[in-house]
């Protein structure tokens, strides 16, 4: 089987630094999200995290932790994709490109799952917030 043309290698060599940098930025973003979660647990004194009831705080912290978890997974997928692109660029073996594209697929699959989890969590939080508000209103009357 003939190897892939130099044009494919050139484009992938162009993709690699952007993907690697995106992966690093996702890890940085995860760290910033973690700082916000810690600040919320400490009472919001340092980063002006909004004060709220204990139930809302618990939900917000849970969402924050899930956010950190997924950002780390996405960052790992992108950095691994960039490393595997490097292997293909150096060796030119189609199997290396398959492995790189496998990690690229894992990134999009994880992004899709993260989006679904986030949307479901937002809907659940809205329903709980409405129920809490209704309970307060009923209690006041």
């Amino acid at each position: 089987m003939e190897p892939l043309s130099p044009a494919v290698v050139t484009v992938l060599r162009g993709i690699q630094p952007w993907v690697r940098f995106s992966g690093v930025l996702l890890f940085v973003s995860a760290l910033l999200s973690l700082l916000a979660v810690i600040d919320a647990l400490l009472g919001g004194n340092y980063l002006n995290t909004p004060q709220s009831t204990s139930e809302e705080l618990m939900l917000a912290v849970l969402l924050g932790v899930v956010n950190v978890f997924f950002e780390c997974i996405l960052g790992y997928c992108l950095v691994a994709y960039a490393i595997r692109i490097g292997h293909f660029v150096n060796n030119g073996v189609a199997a290396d490109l398959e492995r790189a594209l496998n990690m690229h697929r894992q990134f999009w699959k994880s992004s899709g799952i993260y989006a679904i989890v986030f949307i479901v969590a937002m809907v659940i939080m809205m329903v709980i917030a409405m129920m809490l508000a209704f309970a307060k209103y009923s209690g006041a009357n």
Partner: protein
Amino acid sequence: MQNNYLPPKAAVADVTHSSGEVTTGIIDQLRRTKPWALFVAILLFILAVLLVLTTGMVLLGAVAMSGAGKSAQLGALFLGIGLFLGVAAVVYFLLGMFLTKFTSAVDRLVSNGAEADLLDTLVRQKRFWVVSTIVMLLTVVLTLVYYVALLTVPELKSMLSGGGA
């Protein structure tokens, strides 16, 4: 001597075409990536539409508040927020468009299996990564600036908390 126990061969082309250079493994990985990428692209388009609607409401608020005194300051703030949201809507729409074009290129690759289609797929992928990396960088930098400002400028925290303490 003919072997009568061999399985029959179908006289149709293989479903997954592949040329000598582009392996079926490569095509298969991209084919399995496509639904997830398309799903995220649709979410980006929905987000862009929501941001456009929000921008419209914020700009209406800015117009309503235009006048003298404190209202004018609030109106200017709303205008700034509206413009920012408008730019964000355009960016999310662009990202959704790049992803959709990537998935279209994957469809052509799966149909033809040609190296030119693989190249097209990778070029469209690269466009997406360039824009998304720049957007991510701006978001992280703005968040860092915000955190540093909160930690070093006490007046800012009290202003954001509604003038308390």
